[in-house]
């Protein structure tokens, strides 16, 4: 390929970078504005998922400190992902079905 054609192609690739950035960061912008928090809010009010406070009433969770609580969609289910600190200072992750409140899996201690 001639040098000028390669240079032209190079600018085309630059345009592709910019184009993909626009699609990814601006195209999805509207969805971002109604982000996770609002979605969690909506789900909760529709009565689809139990509130975190209710989940924390489970016997094995009483007395544990929540370091991080996330609401995730996985395989069509909404799950609570909890990062907990127990009395002995150990960190655990636990997963619960956000609709039924049933435990899903338990990871080892980090």
């Amino acid at each position, binding site marked *: *390929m001639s*040098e000028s054609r*390669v*240079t032209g*192609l*190079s*600018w085309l*690739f*630059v345009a*592709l*970078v910019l184009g*993909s*950035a626009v699609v*990814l*960061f601006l195209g*999805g912008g509207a*969805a*971002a504005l109604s*982000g*996770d928090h609002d979605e969690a809010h909506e789900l909760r009010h529709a009565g689809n998922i139990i509130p975190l406070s209710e989940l924390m009433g489970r016997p094995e969770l009483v007395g544990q400190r929540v370091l*991080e609580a996330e609401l*995730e*969609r*996985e*395989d069509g289910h909404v799950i609570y*992902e909890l990062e907990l600190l127990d009395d002995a200072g150990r960190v655990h*992750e636990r*997963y619960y079905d956000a609709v039924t409140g049933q435990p899903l*899996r338990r*990871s080892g201690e980090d």
Partner: protein
Amino acid sequence: MQLDRDKVLVWDPFVRMFHWSLVLAYLVVWLSAEEWEWLHDQTGYFILVLIGLRVLWGLIGSRHARFGDFLYSPGRTLNYLKQLRSNRPQHYLGHNPAGGWMVVILLLALLATGVSGVLIGAGEHEFWEDLHEGLANLTLFLVFVHVTGVLFSSLLHHENLIRAMWTGTKVRRDADV
């Protein structure tokens, strides 16, 4: 003395755009991790697009952008690394053999990190998340090696490689490969 006529365009516009977009995106993807999920995910996808374009450009792009230009055999790469110890290494106009392999290893590590990140949402949540974090740490280590190599090579050859990646030009030397 360096004459202007010895300045040649080594890094084409896309290579430079790719490099600095990746630097910026890498910064964003680290800072947004576990904080701003949407931004983290979108930036991750952006990095995967960048890698895809760079691989394609490595096959059809300008001379020094092509993998064929900067991927040297293991023997020649080892030989280059030995030259470094003698302090009189061969000067390369494009990537030197060590830098060339660094490019490929960084691309592969970033690709693996991105793919493992995408798979977090596809089930086996915990497995992919752990792998994603491990790979992300690996890429950070590789970035440090890369930056160290660039600074080392810049000092060794008395040329500013960071500026070269910004302007695209380097000064050609008589014995250049």
